């Protein structure tokens, strides 16, 4: 199953990307821009209603889409760096735009999307870059944070390009 995304232009936002060897834990997040809360949002929050969240799952990797616009906000994975494909040079792709990436059609009846595949992790220690491949060749790239570029083709998500990955 492919993850169909739509791009919305915006500003580049801060992000973080870390990998903890002791836990095999990759964590990458995008800082969300605080928006003026509507009255409904305030009421929802006061009674404990959370904003909707969807998880796209590929093996042990989970991509989180959050909010009414189902915006990509983070991803994490349980993955052994020793199993990543070592690469001496991961070219930084040319981005077509800066902004947010959203789910085109968030599933109405489930908060889980199983991609049914195992992604490939390609890592350049020298460049501190990580490319997670979902079995397709991207035709365009969108930068969603200072350290995350999303690659997609016409059918959906193709790669996640992580830069400035801090390995501890």
């Amino acid at each position, binding site marked *: 199953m492919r993850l169909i995304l739509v791009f919305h232009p915006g500003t580049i936002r801060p992000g973080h990307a870390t990998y*903890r060897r*002791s*836990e*095999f*834990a990759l*964590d990458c997040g995008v800082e969300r821009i605080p928006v003026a809360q509507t009255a409904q949002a305030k009421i929802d929050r006061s009674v404990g209603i*959370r904003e909707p*969240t969807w*998880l796209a*799952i590929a*093996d*042990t990797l*989970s991509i989180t889409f959050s909010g009414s616009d189902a915006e990509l906000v983070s991803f*994490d994975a*349980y*993955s*052994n760096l*020793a*199993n990543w494909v070592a690469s001496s040079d991961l070219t930084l792709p040319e981005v077509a735009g800066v902004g947010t990436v959203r789910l085109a059609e968030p599933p109405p009846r*489930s*908060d*889980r999307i*199983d991609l049914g595949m195992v992604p490939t992790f390609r890592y350049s220690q020298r460049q501190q870059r990580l490319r997670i491949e979902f079995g397709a060749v991207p035709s365009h790239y969108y930068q969603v944070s200072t350290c995350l570029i999303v690659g997609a083709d016409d059918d959906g998500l193709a790669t996640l390009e992580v830069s400035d990955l801090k390995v501890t």
Partner: protein
Amino acid sequence: MTRLIWGLVIGVLLAPATARAQADEVVYYHTDAVGSVRMVTDASGAVVARYDYLPFGELWPTVPPNPDPDVRQFAGKERDPETGLDYFGARYYRAQSGLFLSGDPGDVGADLFDPQSWNAYSYALNNPLRFVDPMGTCSQDAKGNYFDGDEAGTLVAPGLCAINKGALDAGVTETVSVKSKSAIVALAEGINVGAGPVADPLFIVGFYGASALGGLGVAGATAGVGAEAITLGVARLAPLAPLAGQLNFTNTVLKHMSNPGRMVPIQTLAEAIRSGTRMPDPQGAAGAVKVVQQVFVNGTPRTLEIIYREADKTILHFLYK
């Protein structure tokens, strides 16, 4: 002041050997087959109160026959005069609807092959003339025997309600696959020897095992047992509470556990670790295994995956999809 004196055998009012002391007066309860107080007599044997009930415990007629009704009524349980609710220990019961006000504690006690047990709020397998639920956690007959819910009413395990939590506390049980109900009976009888007192009804585990998420027993579909065992169910009396209390988590897992959209109850994780299908960790973490278990989340079947390190009982990763 009213002082109530009554005998307690797993929550059942004993009659007629129980008495109520009120000032200088001693009165006696007389109960029926399900423990409901039907008559109260004084020391001379004179009837001071009578009670009749509809099958699920509603007083009939609905107006109490005496202005000062006794506290203990249906199934020998205390009836709150203000709310009309019966206190069963683990939860409250409403006779007018024939349902408990809260679900089976821990969502346990469901039997995959007994549809009457699927409703976590129902009382005594919806058969209140035959069964009682002395603690609000398990249906049994007046002798403490547990029966399955089919029409034949086959005896599954004698005295099960009294022993299951005690067996857990005693830690004498393991995951056991059985291929006949007689084997279950033998298992239960064997456990009975080491049974201890019931301590915490929240951790009582249903005889067939159950999903803490869905309330429907899934242990019968546990991988790693034969097809026949799957058909007949797998008896599980594993001590889940101790394992749940010993589990450790990595910082990342703790972070996910604090996320309502991702967390899985610790009891469910412990259940899966004990009974799920195990395989080597694909990521190759030393001493870790991948555990896969089918669970129900809000009634929807899901696949729960856990990466678990046995040596220090640490969960390295989990998710359900």
